[in-house]
């Protein structure tokens, strides 16, 4: 079966971003960019499905500026077979992304679409679910275990009170949580090989999708800062402060 893995280019998770002084956005100039960590877990899971003889082809797709081909190359080096790049200005909102992906799903007919549960820049946690709704597929979000069984898949989900396991008919959308797997690193020979794997480039116009969004960002602020308090010298002093000053115990 074919597995489609949408991935996103985001600022590296180790980088602390700053808000621009004109409050229009965050400043991403010259920052290290990487594949979104949850997407990396999705790529890894797809590779494991291929290693287990379940997946036959892995297609990595990314939407954004030309530079996101770097992240597609990373996925190809890890084990994806080919890439699709949908070139946009990089500012699309989740609904537009989901509509573009729905077109790719229609063309490629994958049995499983594996995505990260959210990107660490927008923090929206929407794209997988929207794609599932637009293509009338079931969804297993925040997955910590995926087990393909014939024409269905069992997905164990991380939920607020613990874990819930669902059975989904295929084709299905699965979004990854942190504990699904530990992604591997690409080897140098595989990085070299990935350079020869094909990446098809498409545009939203070719796919017939209007990518203008309905949300406007009016401004971006720094979060309220919290000042350091006082250091106490003993457990007694701590209890005293909590009782008489903070009055919380």
């Amino acid at each position: 079966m074919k597995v489609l893995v949408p991935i996103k280019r985001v600022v590296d998770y180790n980088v602390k971003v700053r808000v621009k002084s004109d409050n229009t956005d965050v400043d991403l100039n010259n920052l290290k960019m990487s594949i979104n960590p949850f997407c990396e877990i999705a790529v890894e899971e797809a590779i494991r499905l291929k290693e287990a003889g379940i997946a036959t082809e892995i297609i990595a797709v990314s939407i954004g500026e030309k530079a996101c081909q770097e992240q597609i190359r990373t996925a190809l080096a890890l084990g994806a077979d080919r890439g699709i790049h949908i070139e946009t200005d990089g500012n699309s909102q989740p609904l537009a992304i989901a509509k573009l992906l729905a077109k790719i799903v229609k063309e490629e007919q994958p049995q499983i679409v594996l995505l990260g549960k959210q990107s660490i820049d927008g923090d929206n946690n929407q794209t997988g679910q929207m794609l599932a709704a637009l293509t009338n597929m079931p969804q297993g979000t925040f997955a910590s275990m995926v087990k393909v069984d014939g024409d269905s898949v069992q997905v164990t989900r991380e939920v607020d009170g613990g874990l819930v396991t669902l059975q989904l008919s295929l084709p299905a959308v699965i979004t990854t949580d942190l504990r699904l797997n530990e992604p591997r690193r690409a080897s140098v020979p595989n990085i070299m090989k990935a350079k020869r794997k094909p990446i098809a480039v498409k545009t939203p116009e070719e796919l017939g999708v209007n990518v203008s969004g309905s949300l406007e960002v009016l401004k971006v602020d720094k979060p309220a800062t919290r000042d350091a308090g006082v250091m106490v010298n003993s457990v007694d002093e701590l209890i005293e402060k909590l009782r008489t000053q903070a009055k919380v115990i």
Partner: protein
Amino acid sequence: MTILVIAEHNNTSLKSDTHKVVAAAMDIAQYSNANIEVLIAGARCAAAAQQATKLAGISKVLIADHVCYEHQLAENVGLLVADLGKGYSHILTAASTTGKNFLPRVAALLDVAQISDIISVESSDTFQRPFYAGNAIATVKSNDAIKVITVRTSAFDAVDENNDVAMENIDNVQDAGLSSYVSSELTISERPELGSARVIVSGGRGMQNGENFKMLEELADKLGGGVGASRAAVDAGFVPNDMQVGQTGKIVAPELYIAVGISGAIQHLAGMKDSKVIVAINKDPDAPIFQIADFGLEADLFEAIPELISKLS
């Protein structure tokens, strides 16, 4: 204009998230003069619906009681809410793992954007939400006719239960037939849930192993609180993931947060920095957690915690 709130419940009672989402809806109603209606979708959920009729600020409770809604399957609840939601100005639910699961489907089916995780209401169409792990706050205006919103419940105070409104049965069965419930492993605990606990005691990598979390449980019990953990403690396998506080876990804002053996990675701070009072206990004087703590104690937690427990007795 009418606002639809989708309740979070377990078929027998409401979760406190619902009370907080209604508070966010009231903030919107103040700008738009809207009524607020609450939908309970579930199976044999009359008791939860009965409780919902008491929620302050609302005008009606809708109940969709059918076995296909029992486990809050996103495919079914998504179809129901998208169908009902056409007549509303706003659709709100909690940014819990349930709300985050089904609401984007609703937005896609209605062909509108979703605004995730709002922390404040600026007007009937403008909201604030954190992104980049809470390192930036965006003020976002929606130009859609229907605003579909998840609410970060730690940012709103729960409404009271002092109302008595009518309940209306919704005969609308939307069984997509795409998914089914198999099983669940839910953490059974006598302690309050992290989302509603007044006090939270959290442990990090400094706890060294899962066994040592018993100390924190004992301390939490003294204070009537819940127990959380940092991602480092979860990744190290000390405790299960549903205890995780942080950007990739739960976002909490209790009255008292006690961070024990937690260094204070940005990831963790994003999940607890809105707590009213923060206490940090760590033996490393340079731990970043001390920079945001109201009260810091530089000490070996294996001495300080037992002392704290005995002196609170």
